[in-house]
């Protein structure tokens, strides 16, 4: 059972032995899942064997383990021979980040003009931006305040259903419903967070997981209220100052008012700019929150809760603020989602959606705004590349979450940079 070997001088025999024991465990793990499977044959199951794929898997484990150990050791040796870098130098990277940030913003703003004929590209980009917005919202909760929320999709659902019901039942428009739905989602956050945020962080994770399921089960079963599994359809699209993006003839169409030709992609491009604006507002909001006392307290609570209590910070209120703001941003994203799809059902708000949003935050680097954008791009575009990717997408997410936690617990882009760094008098930053 001892496959741990970290001594820098391993002989070839040691390496092989280490590789073999790993491969053996891989074999034992692989037999019941990869080696054997059951297929349904007219009501009765039959066992099917897949020895070649099992052999391939064991071979990969063997080679992979040996290569991994060699890489690890060469890293350890190099690290030992190099003097330790002084810590706390965060200024240099932020300049590059801001250049990349503005460049990315320029690209995002110009994108629909370049691809205005290509509906697919603009649609995909809109999906990416929805995830960016959700990621930024969850980042407040997970990345800044250090609270693990596994039911984030519940707030997304609350926002979406609030808008869907307000618009289809009471005729509300997108822009009036947006703040209301955000407020409703935030109050759900407060209702859920108030009793649980006083407890240890692990409990919050499982309570939010349960809450996400409760919301979904209610949406599925309370047919009179939410339409049940059939969902709510014909949700109105957002307009602009009372004009709609419908074909000319309705009297309120924007193409008539402006006297331009109608094109079906106009609405898609408009939706893209709406979500871009919402995402940018979210980003600005979160950035300025980080400079306020509450935002500073989030990071402090994440790093050391007991120290914060000793300093007189009301930890529960600080966490509650993060939780409610995260919920509100999720609610905004939900409103946009409902308006864009025109149809929502509980199918869109399952746990795996929460897991995807969490994966975006974790892979991008907790607390890093730029990382969320990169992770959303990768996670949305990867399944678009082909059906194979779509099938293995969640498998890859799970694997990536474990590996990133093991190798870089802060996430790919993050160095867990505090917004403020203390520099003693006479010292250079």
């Amino acid at each position, binding site marked *: *059972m001892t*496959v741990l070997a970290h001594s820098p001088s391993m002989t070839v025999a040691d390496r092989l032995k280490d590789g073999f024991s790993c491969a053996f*465990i891989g074999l*034992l*793990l692989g*037999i*019941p*899942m*990869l080696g*054997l*499977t*059951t297929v*349904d044959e007219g*009501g*009765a*199951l*039959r*066992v099917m064997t897949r020895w070649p794929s099992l052999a391939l898997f064991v071979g990969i484990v063997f080679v992979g383990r040996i290569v991994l150990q060699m890489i690890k050791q060469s890293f350890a040796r190099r690290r030992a021979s190099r003097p330790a870098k002084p810590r706390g130098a965060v200024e240099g990277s932020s300049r590059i980040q801001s250049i990349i940030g503005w460049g990315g913003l320029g690209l995002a703003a110009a994108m629909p003009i370049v691809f205005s004929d290509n509906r697919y590209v603009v649609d995909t980009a809109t999906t990416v931006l929805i995830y960016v917005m959700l990621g930024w919202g969850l980042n407040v909760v*997970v990345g800044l305040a*250090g609270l*693990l929320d*596994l039911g984030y999709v519940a707030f997304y659902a609350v926002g979406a259903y609030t808008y869907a019901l307000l618009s289809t039942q009471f005729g509300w428009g997108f822009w009036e419903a947006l703040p209301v739905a955000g407020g409703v989602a935030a109050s759900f956050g407060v209702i*859920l967070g108030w*009793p*649980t945020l006083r*407890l*240890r*962080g*692990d*409990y919050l*994770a*499982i*309570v939010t*997981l*349960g*809450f996400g*399921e*409760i919301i979904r*089960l*209610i949406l*599925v*079963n309370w047919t009179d209220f939410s339409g049940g599994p059939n969902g709510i359809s014909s949700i109105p699209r957002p307009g602009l100052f009372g004009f709609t993006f419908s074909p000319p003839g309705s009297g309120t169409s924007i193409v008539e008012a402006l006297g331009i030709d109608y094109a079906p992609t106009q609405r898609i491009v408009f939706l893209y700019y709406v979500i871009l604006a919402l995402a940018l507002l979210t980003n600005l909001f979160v950035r300025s929150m980080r400079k306020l006392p509450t935002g500073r307290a989030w990071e402090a609570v994440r790093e050391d809760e*007991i120290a914060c209590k000793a300093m007189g910070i009301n930890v529960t209120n600080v966490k509650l603020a993060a939780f409610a703001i995260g919920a509100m941003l999720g609610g905004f994203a939900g409103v946009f989602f409902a308006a864009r799809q025109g149809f929502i059902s509980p199918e869109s708000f399952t746990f*795996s959606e929460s*897991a995807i949003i969490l*994966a975006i935050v*974790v892979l991008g680097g*907790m607390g890093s705004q730029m990382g969320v954008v990169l992770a959303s791009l990768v996670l949305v575009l990867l399944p678009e590349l082909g059906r194979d990717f779509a*099938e*293995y997408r*969640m*498998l890859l*997410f*799970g*694997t990536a*979450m*474990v590996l990133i*936690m*093991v190798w870089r*617990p802060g996430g790919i882009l993050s160095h867990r940079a505090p917004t403020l760094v203390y520099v003693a008098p006479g010292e250079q930053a």
Partner: protein
Amino acid sequence: MAQAIQQLINGLTLGAVYGLIAIGYTMVYGIIGMINFAHGDIYMVSAFIAVTSFTLMAAFGVSSVPFALLAVLVVAIAFTSIYGWAVERIAYRPLRGSNRLAPLISAIGMSIFLQNMVQVTQGARVKPITPMLTDGFDLFREGTFTVRLFHSQVLIILVTVALMAAFTYLITRTSFGRQQRACEQDRTVTLILGYNVDRIISLTFMIGASLAAVAGVMVTVYYGVVDFFIGFVVGIKAFTAAVLGGIGSLPGAMLGGLIIGLIEAFWASYLSAEYKDVASFAILIMVLMFRPSGLLGRPEVEKV
């Protein structure tokens, strides 16, 4: 009255299964202070191993049900405990001593991985096995309603009681049990005393996985169907049971499991079957609000 007794039987059966899984949560929490989110999926993996082994048994012409059950139990326990070991070794051990969030996220990742791994390798569709132990005892009759105790229910309750006895002996009387409890109280001191803490933690995960494996085999026999998603809801319910009983307390986990099982059975039959899962989640939130240390647990004091 007859219906109440029937629900009592069903609830106890369900509760025994939740209790077995809850022990895995509570033991791991006791020893390393983290929620093993992947535990529900370990249970799911064991149910799939059980389906494959039952089918293999049938293919080899084993017709004796007791022998087949015993063999499947042994196989499932053996393979599932390796899964339990591997999960700890790969996803949790490297993170020991890091910040609190990292192991939780790693556990979520492991849970997603296991679910999708099973979906990809075993297929997304529900797997039905040939029904077994479908006979039962007719206890008594009231009007048209007959109270029935199935053989599979007797089996589940008997196996759970036997396992609990063996498990209590293991923890309270054996050398390993003492090491395990020592680890729970203070890992550093246990290490100084010369015990292999890593090994104790690994064994704890393997024992938790074995109990989940027994639950997985039992459920496969009881319901006759499995799919890759069963670990999620059962995992949350078993965790609720562990919290209700007082996380870290072994008798508490069993008691919590029974209570959750009974509440679910009665809720489903008297109130609404659609909202039976909501009931368990609501209990979880209520317990955390009003009695976070659970029924048999001690209040937690956070040390600096």
